[in-house]
């Protein structure tokens, strides 16, 4: 059991983090105080075209030197600083969160169509697998993940999320079940511009992990959710699938359902299932995924976890509970519960 909430303002109107803090705290019962986190899009307008690399350091001597050497090998650090945090109660700086605004040198990956993204992906995988005491947990442009072990309101206050403004926010309250709670295991999980929050468990993790690692991704965070971030990056960015088709690959209809479809739908769904059989996720889950211009929510195909959608003017909300949406938007105009496996997509229009 975990709690998730996401909101996108389709006109890119900015929202500070105070409302989503309240919404996540309403779902405290869904967590255990061992992990919470927030992600916001549009938080670094002064460095909008640079990659904002957030790192947890165990100390700022050896791991930091190694990470900076690697960054300077592959590009230029235009600015860096410790992420401001505010210790209180039991919230202590167990890891030191640092951020870099990084410009990759595209000439170093000349063979790629997306050299900057590929350089940053390579750096994330290298740091997280081979530099002890350093973990990159956020690596997109103009976005930031803020997470730690603690209750939703504790983690929000530790980073003062109300000081950040974004047009798209997601947040997660963790109840760790299969692996222990730690800072890196808190959600959201992020790679480049993809961020994921997830309630449930992915019982097909082994298959999905082998599949995604065959494309050069490395799973390092001891929890199933990170494969979703990498699958999104592979299918939606590298294979250029639409978000709807990506969700179809991850949570496909049953073969019996496909048999009942119109011929063209049948052909499409069969092709997706055959091509992406190993990307299919089993188990109970409700997931929200974001990138720069969209927020996507979906549940597993037999709906073993809750998912509620709220629509209000230019805003789309996705959450585990209606109460969380109403905490952010008391007069929300429309509330609905999507069908199992049905993708809910909110896109920016401006």
């Amino acid at each position, binding site marked *: 059991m975990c709690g998730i909430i996401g909101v996108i303002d389709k006109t890119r109107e900015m929202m500070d983090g105070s409302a989503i803090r309240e919404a996540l705290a309403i779902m405290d019962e869904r967590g255990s105080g061992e992990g919470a986190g927030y992600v916001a899009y549009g938080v670094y307008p002064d460095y909008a075209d640079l990659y904002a690399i957030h790192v947890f350091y165990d100390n700022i001597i050896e791991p930091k030197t190694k990470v900076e050497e690697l960054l300077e090998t592959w590009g230029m650090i235009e600015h860096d600083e410790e992420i401001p945090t505010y210790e209180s109660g039991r919230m202590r700086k167990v890891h030191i969160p640092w951020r870099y605004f990084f410009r990759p040198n595209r000439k170093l990956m000349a063979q790629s169509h997306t050299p900057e993204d590929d350089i940053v992906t390579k750096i994330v995988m290298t740091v997280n697998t081979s530099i002890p005491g350093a973990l990159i947990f956020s690596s997109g442009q103009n976005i930031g993940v803020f997470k730690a072990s603690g209750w939703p309101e504790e983690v929000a206050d530790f980073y003062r999320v109300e000081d950040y403004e974004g047009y798209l926010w997601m947040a997660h309250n963790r109840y760790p079940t299969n692996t222990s709670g730690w800072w890196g295991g808190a959600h959201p999980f992020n790679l480049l511009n993809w961020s994921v929050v997830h309630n449930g468990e992915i019982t097909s993790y082994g298959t999905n992990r082998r599949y995604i690692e065959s494309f050069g991704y490395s799973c390092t965070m001891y929890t199933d959710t990170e494969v979703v971030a990498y699958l999104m990056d592979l299918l939606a960015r590298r294979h250029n699938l639409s978000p709807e088709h990506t969700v179809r690959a991850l949570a496909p209809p049953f073969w*019996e*359902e496909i048999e009942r479809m119109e011929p063209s739908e049948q052909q499409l769904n069969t092709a997706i299932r055959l091509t992406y059989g190993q990307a299919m996720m089993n188990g109970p889950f409700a997931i929200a995924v974001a990138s720069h211009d969209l927020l996507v929510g979906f549940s597993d195909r037999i*709906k073993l976890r*809750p998912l509620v959608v709220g629509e209000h003017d230019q805003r789309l909300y996705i959450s585990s*509970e*209606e*109460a969380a949406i109403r905490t952010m938007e008391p007069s929300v105009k429309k509330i609905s519960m999507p*069908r*199992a496996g049905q993708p809910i997509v909110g896109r920016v229009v401006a």
Partner: protein
Amino acid sequence: MPAVEIDAQGMHYTPLNRQIREAVTNGATEIVLKNIMGQRFIGDGLTGTATITVEGVPGGDLGMFMKGPTIIVHGNADHAPGNTMDEGLIVIYGSSGDATAHSMRGGKVYVRDDIGYRGGIHMKQYVNKKPVLVVGGEAHAFLGEYMAGGLIILLRLNQNTNMPFAEMGLASGIHGGEIFVRGTVEDWTLGIGSAAREATPEDLASIKPYISEFCEQFGFDPAVIMASSFTRIAPVSARPFANKYTWE
């Protein structure tokens, strides 16, 4: 005694339930909960005959283990309202989430609009204890899953009833109780161990009191509903999995 009003703004469910029980102990028959926002377990294990009005959106497991009271919700309910409820009535002027009436063993749950997945899962009955779930709108897959007793009535009032019910796993694993769906159901919806046929006049007579009471709550016309045809879904056997787990 005048109605007792409790402002639940920002209140955790533990002190809220404590205040509700205190009010009932002091003889309150009408309790109004204001500004409810996601508090779980409201009225859990509560006994007596008080009526509790919920203004707002309650959290999961509303009225769990409740024995006697009435809860009226002006809003949507979250997961599993009426979970293992024993006696009493829950009326929801809105929709409710997954596993509505989960494991109910007595009393009634009336939902005006829709319910989520697995409505009435594990409902059961014993002698004169017979739980009833009536839903005005739609239900999703696995309605009445593993049902061991009780009654589910799905009215589908928001739908054109010419469209058959089309959600998979209907009554999957059912081994007691019965489900009535207004209109017809697609054959493929029927889960393991269930069988469907058109409801007979005797069947309809048996569900009429609940439909009348439901209509009275929400202002529908029972005559229109009773004029429709219904499909009755019931177990093919009391022990559909006997050969799976045991040797006779």
